[in-house]
Every structure is written in C-alpha cells, then in structure tokens.
C-alpha cells in the first residue's frame, strides 16, 4: 500500500499517474509503425489499417478491428481506394475516409454498411487530411483537399455538406474542428465557418512565438492548445478569450500527437505531447513531466485522461483525482487517510485503530472520511486497492448511525461491473451500450439488471438491438423470427417494434416487417415505414389512431400523389378525421377541390356556403348573382329554407341597388338592406326606401327607428312631426324625445313628452331636463325606484322639491 504513490508524478499543484490497463493480446509483427490507427473513446475498439499507402497496386492492406484489450474482432483485406483517415462514430461504427472523398462505413464486426461522399469537387483534388469529430448533433467529418479547401459535415446521419470559403493564401499549416474549423497559416489563426474566414488572435500569443504548427481541442471542446515552431505551447479557452499558460517545450520539431489530459473538476488541465521517443505532460506550471518512449504509440483522448496504446501494452495517463491524493498522499491527515489507517490497524488488532478513529470523530469528520474512501475506490483500477478502501469505508460506517448507504452500495455495484467488463476477454467497454454493440447480449442484460437500470433504458435497449440483429439472420423463416422476437421482447416497455421492422424491411423482408409492425403499440411510429412499404391505407388508419394531425396530413398528401382522384376521395371517405383535415387544407390551398369534396359527399349545405363565399370574390354582378343562384339551389337541396330565401332576398337587393345606382348614381351596391334604406332616406328618396320596407317585409319598429333618426339628422322637424302622427308609433314616443335631445333640440323633444306612456314618462321628463315634471310623474306613479332616480338628479338647493320627493318616497316605502 505504501507504494501506491510510486507512479505519481507531480506537476504544479497536481499529480499525474500512468497506470497499465492491459498487456495487449494482439500480436503485431511490425508494431504500430506505418499504420493508420483509430480508437473509439470510452474504452472503445481499435481499428488498424496496415500500410495504407500501397507499395504496389496489387498489394492489399489489411484492416483489423480489435477490442481495447487487443482481442481480434474482425480482419479483412482492404479492397477499396487509398484511405486517409480512420475514425469511429458515437455508435461504434468505423468510418474509412478515402483519398477521393468517399467515406465507407463498417460496423464493429467489419461488415460494410453504407458509404457517402464528401462532394464532387474532392474527386479532382484529393483529400489531404481528414478528421472525425463528435458534437451534440452526432458524428461529423471534416476534410481538407490538396488545394486547401475545407468541407464539413456536422452529422453523417443527416448529411449536409458545407463547403467552406477559400482560405487566405490558399495554404494552411494546422487545423482543428472547433466552432467551425480553426486553422493556422504561419503565425496567424483563423476561424473558418460557412460564411467567412475570420482572423483571430489568441490572447497573449505574440508573433515572436512563431508559426503555429499543431493544435488540439480538449474532449469537451472547451480548451485549445497551440504549438509553434519555436517550441512554445500556448493553452487557453477555445473561444479565445482567456489564456491559461504558455510553456516552452524546448522542442522545435512539431509533436506527432498533442492531446488534452484533464478530468471533470480538474485542478489544472494539461496537455500530453508525443514525439518519436518522448512523451511530455505540460500544463499551467512551467514544469513538465517527461516519459521516454520505446515503441511507437498512439494517444487517445478520454473524458478523464489519455489512453496510450503501444504494440505491447496500454496505459492510462490521468491526473490523480483530488480525493485519491488526499487519501494516499504521504503523511496525509485527511479524514479518509486516517480512516484507512484505522482500518489497517484494526485488522492488525492494534489499539491504534481506536486512536485514529477517535481523531476523526473528534473533528466530526467520520461521514466525510467514509465518503472519501468510497469515492476514491471508484477511481482506482487495482481491485486490491478498491477492496481496502471499501473495507475501510464499511468499517467507518459502523460508527455512524444515520449514514445513507446509497453511495456505498452503488459504488460497489458499479465497480463489480466495471471490473467484469475490464476483463481481458471483454476489453474495457465502460457502458452497457458499448456492451450491447459488441453483441455480448446476455452479459449486457445481466449488467442492466444488476445496476438496476430502468427497463426502458437498459434491458429494452439490449433487446431491441438483439432483435434488430435477429431479423438479419437469413437462414431463419419469417415465421420463426417473428415468433422468436415476440417471445423474447414481448411487450417490454420502450422497445420499438417499428425500429425492428424497419431493419427487417432494410434487409428485404417486407413480410416479416409487416408481422413485426403488428406488435407496435405506438401507431405514429408505424406510419413512416408503412408508407415506405406502400401500405398507405393501413398507414392512414394508423396515423388517425395516433391523434397526431400532422402525421395524418403527411399520409394524406402522400396518398394524393399516389392515387387517382376517385380512389383518393373514396379512401378519405372511409376516414372522417382525415377527410375533415383535408378539407381544412383545401380551404386554405385548393378551393376547387373543396367543392369536389362537398359534391362527392352530397353536402349541399356546405356547397351552398361555398358558393356564397365564392360570390364575394366576384367583381361582376352577373357572375355574383349566378353564384348566389347556385347557392340558393343548394340550400334548397339541403332543405335549408331560411338560407335559400335569405339568399334570394340578397339577390333581389343587389339587383335593386344596381338599378338605382344606374339611375341615380346612389352608390348603394354592397350595402346591407338597412344601410341601403338609410342611404335612400339621406338622399331624400323616401319612395324607394318605403318600397324596400314593404318588399322586404322590414319590421315596423326597425323602419320607424330608421326614419326617426334620419329625419332628426336632417333636422326636418315638420316631417318628423307628420311622421309621428302617421300612425301609432310602434317604438313608443320616448324614442322621439331622446332622438330630438341627441340633436340638441329641446323644444321639439318637449312636444313628444306628453305622448309617452306613463311607465316611461319620468324618464322622458328627465331627458328633457324637466325636474318638476319628472317629480310630478314619479309622485303620481308612487314608484320608489323612479322617485330615487329623480332624487339623484335633484340639486340640494331645491329644498322644496327635495322635501316633496322625500315625503312621496317615504309614503311609497310604507306601502
């Protein structure tokens, strides 16, 4: 235990350690010399292409895929063109980028999946360099051609090629993918994106530092390191706003590789540089750590360190986590260190155990001590170290009453799994997904269950992946596969049968796909595949079932383009929901089709409405009338007598308006009946107004109001009086009073007060401002509400009136 710090190297405040992970199982004759190597992060697989540059056209390089521990997974001769770069996608697929810009995709087991091209123009001027990178969008590819043109694809699963603008001087010396492409040309640094090439200056890096010949972005894309030909290494944030450090490596040749080495909550990020025979860790401080190298190596940046792969072994270089430092640092007095010591003494049955424990407890740091031991165990690779730390934690826990065991339990569980998968045979994949992709299904399911991962995230995903492989087995019948899948998968939550079915369809097994789709609970999910398989009717009913109207629209537009009109309409007819949605669509986009739809359904009411709407779009009166006539016919067919009649009336009015417009230039067309009469009265065309009143059977009341207002407006008071006497007013006479008052003609108003019915007389008197009259009327009627209304208007100065009213009010109240 004392020598646990033996492989620690101080650098500034922190320590770095290099731990051996594996002696590699592989047996490489020529080591890693002249090889293209790519290893996937998170302990992923390693791909190796020997002699990518062919010596003769007949020689075939070998492409090999190994697990991280060097167990061979696949190997085959490379028959395609010269490869510039290998890389892994986020889902462990191998990308082989060729000189001519085409990218070939293989799965983990070396079987070809598909290919795509980085653009036509690349064909002529070959790919010089390429890079595979990971971003929130997925896996991307960036290339640069011999003529210094960059092309970028941010997500290879949704391929959109973006050819970047030309770079100044058409030359460059180093590049990296970060916020577009970061590229240097001599001492200058540029950011190249789809629209422009912008010069940027890293803060604190003077021109005397020399030309930038190498650069590297950290795993999280937050930090950037630049290496210049004078041997200076600049580090800073990737948005180029802060500088972290500048180190003189005293090396003038550019490193073969430069990789960031940091961990989440890192104390001081640093960079690992590799030359032919030297590995150097350089960070914020001016010190460096140097390791000699015997064999050619490859560096793989990880989330929490750097993996170093050589032909013989594999090591992990990382910053020693703070908690491990505290426990294992020589002469450390951290609670965790004391607890570890206490447990060691306890095992020796020494009373010193008690002394140590007491010391921790006096500082009430026991909880912290346990927590430290548990956490440190999680960071250690050696299972003996893990065990002693966990035992110490367990020992410390005994003296705590209400300490949550959760962290302890889950760390134990996780460590067991991690140790299991680190076994050479499996080879370090860290997460269950990676297990799944390597087709260790039973182990993966066990891991999921053991780690208590919720089914939909764990077991279900394993099952889905298994089923997707299963449907590709050509030697089994559709029946057998469907049954096997159904038995195993059952209705495990979160398993997408449509995903499995899509796989089956991809392998040319549509029948199997249909069988599998039947098991899918999510109707929406089934639709795209059903459409692809030309089962459009089924797709439509599934879309309707899902309730997602956008999906229904999608199927409907598809059907429309696929079917002849008659069949299309018939199909819609059987799906009312789809039909109404299509109607909505037509209302906005295809008015004519709308008509056909209504026709097909014999929906006369809607047809009539359609013609009415259409009539308003017409400028010429004749076409307008003819459309309205059609509307009348349809309303009649719909047995909507009222609407038919009203529309006929409308036509009659239009004709009348037209006639008068022609004769008198009255400008009536388009006015409502009421407005027409109003206009006629205003023009003094009383006869014509009366004619409309009779012809259209306008209620007396409305006509009286109209005439009353019109006469008052024109101040034809005599006419008004005559009108009031023409017959008994259907609207009473209060209206006369009020309308006159509105025209500020009190004397005229007063004329009508006496004609007002007793119920409204108070109001009438008040309207003309005759308080006395109002009071008399109210007193006579003995109505308390009316008395109150008068009282409210009565000025306090008129004592006499007030008294009278109050007396009457009191009397009314008594009654």
């Amino acid at each position, binding site marked *: 235990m004392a020598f646990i710090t033996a492989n620690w190297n101080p650098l500034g405040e922190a320590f770095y350690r290099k731990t051996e992970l594996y002696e590699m199982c592989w047996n490489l004759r020529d080591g890693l010399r002249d090889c293209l190597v790519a290893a996937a992060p998170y302990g992923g697989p390693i791909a190796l292409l020997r002699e990518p540059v062919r010596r003769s056209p007949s020689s075939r390089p070998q492409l090999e895929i190994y697990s991280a521990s060097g167990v061979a997974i696949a190997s085959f001769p490379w028959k395609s063109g010269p490869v510039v770069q290998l890389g892994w996608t986020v889902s462990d697929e191998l990308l082989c980028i060729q000189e001519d810009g085409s990218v070939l995709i293989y799965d983990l087991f070396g079987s070809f999946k598909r290919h795509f091209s980085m653009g036509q123009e690349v064909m002529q001027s070959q790919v010089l360099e390429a890079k595979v990178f990971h971003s*929130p969008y997925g896996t991307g590819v960036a290339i640069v051609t011999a003529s210094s043109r960059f092309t970028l694809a941010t997500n290879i699963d949704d391929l*959109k090629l973006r050819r970047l603008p030309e770079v100044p001087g058409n030359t460059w010396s180093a590049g990296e993918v970060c*916020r*577009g492409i970061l590229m240097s040309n001599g001492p200058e640094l540029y950011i190249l*994106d*789809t*629209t*422009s090439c912008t010069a940027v200056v890293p803060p604190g890096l003077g021109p005397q530092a020399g030309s930038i010949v190498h650069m590297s972005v950290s795993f999280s894309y937050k930090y950037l390191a630049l290496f210049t030909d004078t041997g200076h290494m600049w580090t800073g944030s990737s948005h180029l706003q802060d500088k972290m450090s500048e180190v003189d490596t005293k090396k003038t040749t550019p490193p073969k590789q430069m990789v960031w080495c940091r961990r989440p909550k890192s104390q001081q990020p640093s960079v690992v540089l590799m030359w032919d025979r030297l590995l150097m860790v350089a960070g914020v401080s001016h010190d460096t750590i140097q390791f000699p190298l015997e064999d050619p190596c490859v560096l793989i940046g990880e989330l929490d360190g750097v993996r170093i792969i050589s032909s013989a072994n594999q090591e992990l270089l990382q910053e020693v986590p703070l908690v491990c430092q505290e426990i294992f640092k020589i002469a450390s007095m951290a609670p965790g260190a004391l607890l570890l010591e206490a447990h060691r003494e306890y095992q020796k049955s020494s009373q010193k155990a008690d002394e140590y424990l007491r010391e921790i407890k006096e500082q009430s740091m026991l909880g912290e001590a346990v927590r430290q031991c548990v956490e440190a165990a999680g960071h250690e690779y050696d299972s003996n170290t893990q065990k002693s730390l966990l035992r110490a934690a367990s020992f410390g826990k005994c003296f705590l009453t209400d300490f949550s065991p959760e962290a302890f339990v889950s760390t134990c569980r996780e460590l067991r799994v991690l140790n299991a998968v680190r076994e050479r045979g499996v080879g370090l994949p860290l997460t269950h997904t990676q297990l799944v992709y390597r087709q260790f299904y039973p182990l993966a399911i066990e891991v999921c269950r053991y780690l208590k991962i*919720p*089914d*939909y995230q764990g077991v*279900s995903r394993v099952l889905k992946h298994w089923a997707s492989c299963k449907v590709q087995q050509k030697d089994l019948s559709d029946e057998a596969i469907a049954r096997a899948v159904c038995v195993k998968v059952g*209705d*495990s*939550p*979160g398993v997408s049968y449509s995903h499995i079915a899509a796989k089956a369809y991809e392998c040319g097994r549509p029948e199997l796909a249909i069988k599998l789709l039947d098991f899918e*609970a*999510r109707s929406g999910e089934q639709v795209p595949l059903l459409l692809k398989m030309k089962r459009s009717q089924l797709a439509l009913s599934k879309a309707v079932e*899902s*309730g997602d*109207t*956008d999906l229904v*629209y*999608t199927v409907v*537009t598809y059907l429309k383009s696929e079917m002849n009109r008659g069949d299309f309409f018939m199909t819609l007819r059987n799906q*009312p*929901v789809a039909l*109404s*949605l299509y109607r*909505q*669509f037509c209302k*906005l*986009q295809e008015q004519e089709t709308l008509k056909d739809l209504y026709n097909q359904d014999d929906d006369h*009411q809607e047809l009539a*409405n359609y013609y*009415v*709407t259409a009539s*308003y779009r017409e400028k010429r009166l004749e076409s307008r009338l003819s459309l309205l006539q059609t509307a009348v016919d349809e309303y009649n067919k719909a047995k909507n007598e*009222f*609407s038919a009649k*009203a*529309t006929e*009336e*409308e036509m009659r*009015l239009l004709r009348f308006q037209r006639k008068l417009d022609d004769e008198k230039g009255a400008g009536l067309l388009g*006015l*409502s*009946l*009421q*407005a027409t009469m109003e206009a006629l009265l205003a023009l003094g065309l009383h006869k014509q107004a009366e004619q409309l009143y009779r012809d*259209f059977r*306008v*209620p007396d*009341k*409305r006509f009286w*109001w109209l005439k009353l207002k019109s006469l008052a407006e024109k101040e034809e008071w005599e006419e008004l009086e005559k009108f009031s006497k023409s017959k008994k007013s259907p*609207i009473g006479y209060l209206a006369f009073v009020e309308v006159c008052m509105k025209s500020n003609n009190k004397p005229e108003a007063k004329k009508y007060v006496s004609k007002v019915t007793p119920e409204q007389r108070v109001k009438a008197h*008040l309207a003309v401002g005759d308080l006395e009259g109002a009071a008399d009327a109210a007193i006579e009627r003995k109505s308390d509400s009316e008395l109150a209304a008068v009282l*409210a*208007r009565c000025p306090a100065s008129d004592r006499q009136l007030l008294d009278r009213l109050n007396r009457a009010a009191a009397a009314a109240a008594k009654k």
Partner: protein
Amino acid sequence: MAAHLSYGRVNLNILREAARKELREFLDKCAGSKAIVWDEYLTGPFGLIAQYSLLKEHEVEKMFTLKSGRLPSADVKNIIFFVRPRLELMDIIAENVFSEDKMHSPRDFHILFVPRRSMLCEQRLKEQGVLASFINIDEYILDLIPYDGDLLSMEYESAFRECYLENDQTSLYHTAKGLMTLQALYGTIPQIYGKGECARHVANMMLRMKREFAGSQNQILPVFDTLLLLDRNVDLLTPLATQLTYEGLIDEIYGITNGYVKLPPEKFAQKKQGEASKDLPTEPKKLQLNSAEELYAEIRDKNFNAVGAALSKKAKIISAAFEERHNAKTVGEIKQFVSQLPHMQAARSSLANHTSIAELIKDITSTVCFWGHLGVCASLVSASEAFFDNLTVEQEFMTGVDTDKVNTYIEDCVAQKDPLIKILRLVSMQSVCNNGLKQKVLDYYKREILQTYGYEHILTLNNLEKAGLLKLQSSSRNNYPTIRKTLKLWMEDANEQNPNDISYVYSGYAPLSVRLTQVLARPGWRSIEEVLKMLPGPHFEERQQLPAGLHKKRQQGENRTTLVFFLGGVSYAEIAALRFLSQMEDSGMEYIIATTKLLNGTTWIKSLMDRPESQSS
C-alpha cells in the same frame, strides 16, 4: 423576474424555466450572431417566457417580423425563423430565402417550429426548393404557457372553432402533448375526470401516450391529485354573459392580450404641478396585469362593485404609511422608513393606475353613485344605461324570463345598429337559455341580422348553428330550468362585497362550468347524473397507476390540487370563481387552471365569424 409564478400551490416557474432552458439550448446550437424572424402571433406568448435580454445574451442582435419579400439586411451569421407550423408561413419563408440567395454574403438559415415540427410544412419547403437551405430544423415545444401562478394557457386562438366547426383536432393533440409535458415535470396525475367529446378524446390520447411510453415510469411525486377536462360546449352560456369581476370587465371592455391591456391614455396623464397639461399622451397606456402586482392580485377577482371600497381602503393604508415619516425621529427609524420607500412608491403608483382603470370602467358600467367617496361622481350617461339594460336582459335570460319570444331590447339594439357581436352574444344566450329557439323566433332574429348587417353574415349564422350556439328547439321540453335549479346556477342574494358563493362573479349567475367543478369535489358527480346526461358529450373517470412509493401521504387538513382544463377557452370570471373556491376555507381543494385560450364572449364569437372584416362596428 417571474416570481409570481412560484407563489402558488404549484410552482409554475418550473415549467417556465424548462421552456427557457430549451430556448437557450436551441439558440446556442446556432453559433454566432443571429437575427430572429418572428411569426408575429408568437411574440406575445414568447414575451412571457423570455425577454429580449435573454435573447441578447445569446447573441440575438436583430428581430424582424415575418413578411414576404426580401429579408432586411443585418450583419449576422444566422437567420432563425420562429414560426407556427402553417403552410402559408412556409411560402413566405421560401420567398425570403429565395431573395436572399441573390445577395453576396450568405447567412445560415434555421427554423424553429412552435409548438411542433410538421412534416407537412417541411414537405412544402421541399416543394418550394428551399428545405436544403436550412442548417437546423427544430421544434420548440411550447404548449402550455404560464400566465400566472395558477394559470396556464396555450393561446391557441382557433381551438374552439377547429374542434366544433371543422372537426380538426389538432389543438387537442397539442393539449394531450402539453399535459404529458406537465406530467413529466409535476408527476403523473392519478385521477382524470372529464365531460364532453373533446375531453374524452384528449383523455384517450393521454392514456395512449402513457402506454406508448410504458416503462419510463415517472418518479416524481404527483403535484396534482386530479385532472378535470371540460369541453367548452358543455357550458356555452358562461362566456356569453358579461363578466362582472374587475379583471373580467377590463377584458370585456379593453381586451387583455398575453397579460397586457392597452388603455385610453387620458386618465393616466402625469399630473405634475406647474406643468400645463397641454401635451396629453396619445399612445395607449400599456399595463401588465398579473399577480406580481400586490394590489391587482387583491382586487382582480372581486366583483367590480366591491373594488371601490377595496381601493379606498388601500388608499388609506398607503397614505398612513407615508404619514409614518413624521413619527420617524431617530436616525434608525428614518433609515427604516427610507428603506421601505421604493415599495411604498410602487404601491402608490399601482393604486393610482387601478383607480384610473376603475374610473374608466365605472364610466361605462355604473348607474349608481357608489364611487362618490373617491371624489368621482357618477352621471347618467347613455353608455352606462346601455350597459345596465344589456345586463338586465342577460339576467332575465339566465333566470328564464321570456326566453321563448322575441326580445324587445335585442330588437331595439338591432334597430340602433349596435355592434353585431353584441347582438350575436345576446341571441345566442337566449337560445342557450331556452335550449333552442322556436323556428319563428330564430328566423326573425336571423332576418333582422341579415337585413341590418348584411347578407354575408349568413355564413356566421350557419357557423353559430353548427357550434350549437344558435339552435332550433327540437324537443318541446326546455331542460335549461332543470339544469339551472339542480346546479343552483342562479342565486338571488349574491353578495358582491363579501361573497359566499361563486355566483358573485356574474352578480347572481354561477358559471355552470365552475359548478360542475365544485360538485365534482363535493359531493361528486354521481349526485347530478341526470343533469350530466342533459349536457352534451360523455362524462367519464379514468385512473392512472402510480408507481409504488409515489402515493401521497396526505397531512391532516392538507388540500388536494385539481388541474381544471378548459378545452375551447375560459373566461376571467370563471378563473375568478375557481380562485374563490380555492380560497374557501372548507373547500379542501386548490385549483390550477389551464386552457386552450383565454377568452371572453366577444373574442369567442369573433373566432366563429366568417368574413368578420366586413362586420360593422
């Protein structure tokens, strides 16, 4: 910034924060400077989620309104379209993109669909040949927007029309999705009740969605105990009636949109001494209305007749607080006084604002001089008389007086050419209160409307009939009186000042929708089976299984929480009534309200009109 969202029983700020987070993530995906091109309809709702400052922090430098033609020039790297998934908008976007290509400096295009991505729209962009120009096409799932501490709205304007006229259930799909989002944040809602066809459809979709995601068990302790889904067409009456709460009246008269009201500026002129009042402001005064304002929270849900007293009480408290300065003797006391000043000044300006609003409303509504003590005198103006007459007729209808014959007041209003919407509201109300009108009466009204306002309104009338607002009496029996009596929809002695029943919000009428909610809580719907059968659509109850361990252990006296979702819209008076129920000591229930749209009778009828632009006002 949005603290008022977190005061309530349910912290709706969680929802807002989730929405903000998603917005930030999207903006950061488009690296570099950006300009947003807005579908104008979205700016209001977005304002409730994020202010300009948030956008600015994420390098949004310019904002434009989406319109056809060429995009305004802006020196930015990214152009982002924030749009609803509508075909007509796609055509405009395509036009924008096309005219852009001719210019020399290309910019990156992105689309953010709100609230959901649409294949139909993407297809349209493809047909137009611009789909490939977009670097990012994403969706921003913004279904339910928090409007207040207890209020969520989708602000989906056409929801009622689409559901009941056009048989288009898009809004219901969004509702179901929104409720799933809500459950993801606040836990599975164990009990679902509902009444109406749309409610049934939404519940079905929710249950299906839950099945589809079976296994992804929600481990959040449920915040809501019950969800009640109510179709608007179960209660067509309530929104037709004029709301009589303070907030309801502000909405009826001036209209509240996205939490803001625009008011005539005259009453808000700054009266500074020595300054001539020559330059009266001409721009409408824009005020934000929510419970972040202490005084507003206090009075918004009161019957308007009780607002005066509340304001004058508040005025006394505030002036007393200012008087305190004379008592402040020691330095410490003065310091304390000064520290309270900002709060007091805010309270004073809030009081001034609401006094002005109340005066404005009073000019229109009041016939009684209850306002005198504030130094304002009521006068008998015709606006107030009209308001009063209108109210009288509404109340007659609601109490079932003469609902079967042509109403003279409506006739007079038509003759006077009052606004068409007012007429439609009244006629619809009469029809609803009479369970349909006799052929003769209905035809008479319809003719009056067509002859006076124009024959084009035949389409609108047809729509109202289709939506059930206008109806031909089919059976001879009018069941409205039974419903009214069983549910106690009319309370003779409604107490406006110190209410003891929800009927105070309409000065006598208790909103049917809220009564249904109240009865559901106690004694349960079983007691009103008969009435439920008379109302349209099925009523139902569903249960959603909770994972073991998430069953609430209720404290003694702890209230239950119900989410009431109004499909097709809800009025402010209904919200007030539900808030009143939440506050009642013995109700044992707290309500959170959600809806497709905040509405009043006018905006509602407007959404059902065709060619409303030719309508006379």
